[in-house]
């Protein structure tokens, strides 16, 4: 059975299913219980599962991540919500120095099977620091997996997979996609495997890689260019940033000979750089043009009056496609 739902509803179902099925799963975070989270992603779960399983914590991200590590050491599976990605920094040391390392340091004697969920990205007229997109920090940290859904279906399947994964997962939820679209999502449990990209459209002229909210932008630009210029594109939602799906990327780039990466994050040192490097390593001489990056700029995500000018747009991506194909 399926039902039409938003990403918020799909994520909620994922958590509800896991809370029901596995006693070890608990949710922790600021305002996630009674209030149901500032985006209502955990709405109603405390009423269903109690205050001991859906926990309103004090306002302290290092404390949240740190005590969740303790929970995980003791056999629980904490699903932590950080209220916005820009507020993970107080807990950054816990993530980088412990969450990612305890398995290795104890040679597998302990593991930290936790998920850190956090809304991320711009586009919802949020206040300062509510629009960050620093996924590349986590991609650089050995021992973490980094996952970004872009649709309700994927969100549910990936979140369940992340909770079931024996290793820590940073799970980034694009705020502007929370309610942007509804799709049919199975009511039952299913997983979408980590590490696998999704090819949304297939084409011949260029490979476009995106994740999170940028998938829709990429898709629209590809469709527009197809309509206007007849160019066809592979449009690929990476879904997992670490470990990214190298086979899909390689096959696509070697087929089309052109690539474009779209991300909201700042250009310099963003995930796009790693993907270009991978293409450089694997497929350099297939390239008919430099790999293009259409990204956020190297400035703090601006206040919301200018956020649309910061974010990649269908316009900018279209021009990137054009420049790459007509290079």
């Amino acid at each position, binding site marked *: 059975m399926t039902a039409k739902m938003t990403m918020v509803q799909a994520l909620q179902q994922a958590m509800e299913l896991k809370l029901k099925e596995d006693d070890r799963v608990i949710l922790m975070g600021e305002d996630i219980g009674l209030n149901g989270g500032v985006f209502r992603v955990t709405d109603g779960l405390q009423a269903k599962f109690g205050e001991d399983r859906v926990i309103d914590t004090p306002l302290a991200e290092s404390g949240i991540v740190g005590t969740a590590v303790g929970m995980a050491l003791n056999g629980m599976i904490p699903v932590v919500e950080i209220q916005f990605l820009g507020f993970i920094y107080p807990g950054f040391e816990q993530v980088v120095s412990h969450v990612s390392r305890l398995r290795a340091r104890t040679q597998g004697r302990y593991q930290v099977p936790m998920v850190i969920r956090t809304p991320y990205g711009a586009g919802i*007229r949020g206040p300062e620091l509510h629009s960050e997109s620093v996924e590349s920090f986590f991609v650089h940290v050995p021992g973490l997996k980094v996952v970004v859904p872009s649709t309700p279906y994927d969100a549910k399947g990936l979140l369940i997979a992340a909770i079931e994964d024996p290793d820590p997962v940073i799970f980034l939820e694009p705020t502007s996609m929370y309610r942007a679209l509804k799709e049919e999502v199975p009511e039952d449990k299913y997983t979408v495997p980590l590490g696998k990209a999704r090819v949304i459209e297939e084409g011949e002229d260029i490979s476009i890689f995106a994740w999170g909210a940028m998938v829709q932008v990429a898709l629209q630009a590809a469709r527009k260019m197809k309509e206007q210029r007849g160019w066809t594109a592979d449009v690929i939602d990476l879904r997992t940033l670490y470990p990214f799906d190298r086979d899909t990327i390689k096959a696509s780039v070697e087929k089309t000979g052109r690539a474009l990466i779209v991300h909201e994050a700042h250009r310099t040192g963003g995930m796009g750089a790693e993907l270009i490097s991978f293409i450089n390593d694997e497929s350099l001489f297939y390239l008919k043009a430099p790999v293009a990056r259409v990204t956020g700029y190297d400035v703090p995500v601006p206040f919301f009056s200018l956020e649309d*000018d910061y974010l990649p747009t269908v316009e900018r991506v279209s021009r990137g496609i054009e420049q790459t194909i007509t290079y």
Partner: protein
Amino acid sequence: MRKSMEEQFPVRQILSPEGKLIESVDGWIDDELALDMYEKMVINRTFDRKSVTMQRQGRIGTYAPFEGQEATQVGSAMALDDQDWLFPTYRDHAAMMTFGQSILRVLLYWKGRIEGCVPPEGKHILPPYVPIATQIPHAAGVAWSSKMKGEAVASIVYFGDGATSEGDFHEGLNFASVYNAPVVFFCQNNGYAISVPMSRQMKTKTIAQKALAYDIEGIRIDGNDIFAVYLHTRQAVEKAKRGEGPTLIEAVTYRYGAHTTADDPRKYREQEKEEKIRREKYDPVDRLRRYLESKGLWDDEKEQALVQKAETIINQAVKEMESYPAPQPEDMFEHIFAEKTWNIKEQQQQVAEESDRQRKSVQKELA
């Protein structure tokens, strides 16, 4: 038997909810000052209500209202001297405006304009701090350096009950205590961190007692009593300037409305009932009016004039905000560095070309 912390840190009050003086304020607060306090609270309340309305109308973005906390903010900011430093959170517009920030700037901030961060010339008012508690070490650092320079300048830093859980609260207070820095840690305990009540935020019943961990003075005051707020803040400021170190003030108060306009307080408290009780019994503005009335300093006529004045002032600022020149995409590249790096230049150039292209294509379509 040992006294409980609530007894050790009683809530200090000067003006009773009925508007009666409990202690004399002679030498501290004269009629003029009291009237000024009242006027500021009313103007700020008018501002707050207007902002909430404008958010609903889509004229500004998400907004953090402070109604109910006028006395804590206005009273404490009035206790500062001109050269002092003020570190506000996203909820402390009343404190900022009292200390000299323009209404226009505050409105611009909530309209998503970075220009709203800029303080008036000669005044040290930092932009609102969004990441919780991070301003606390900044204030400690400014104060410490004021002391190093031998200046009689104090810093005041605002934060909420929830902020006390963050590591930065602890680190900031510890540094300030070690260096005996002239800083006032001003905690507006409004009982909630978004939805989380104080009882889930901490085991303690008071925040003032946390001062004991740093051997600094901690006091608890009635945050809806502007006389208590003013007096104790003023004393803390003067003490700081005398070189006698930091003070932690817990001002017990309540926000009437939502955490921000994106929040629905009915999810986590009996909003209507609680709001009603607070407004009827403990309102900070009414309390001061009762006092002024009892002293024959206030009447309905004056009230009407003031309401009028407040509206005029706020409407004027709103007008300025709405006619403020639109931001340019290129602006986001300004002031990242003193001198632009090559990639910022390049990106700014790109954006400028893009704007240009768009402008032209719009013109073309129109033509």
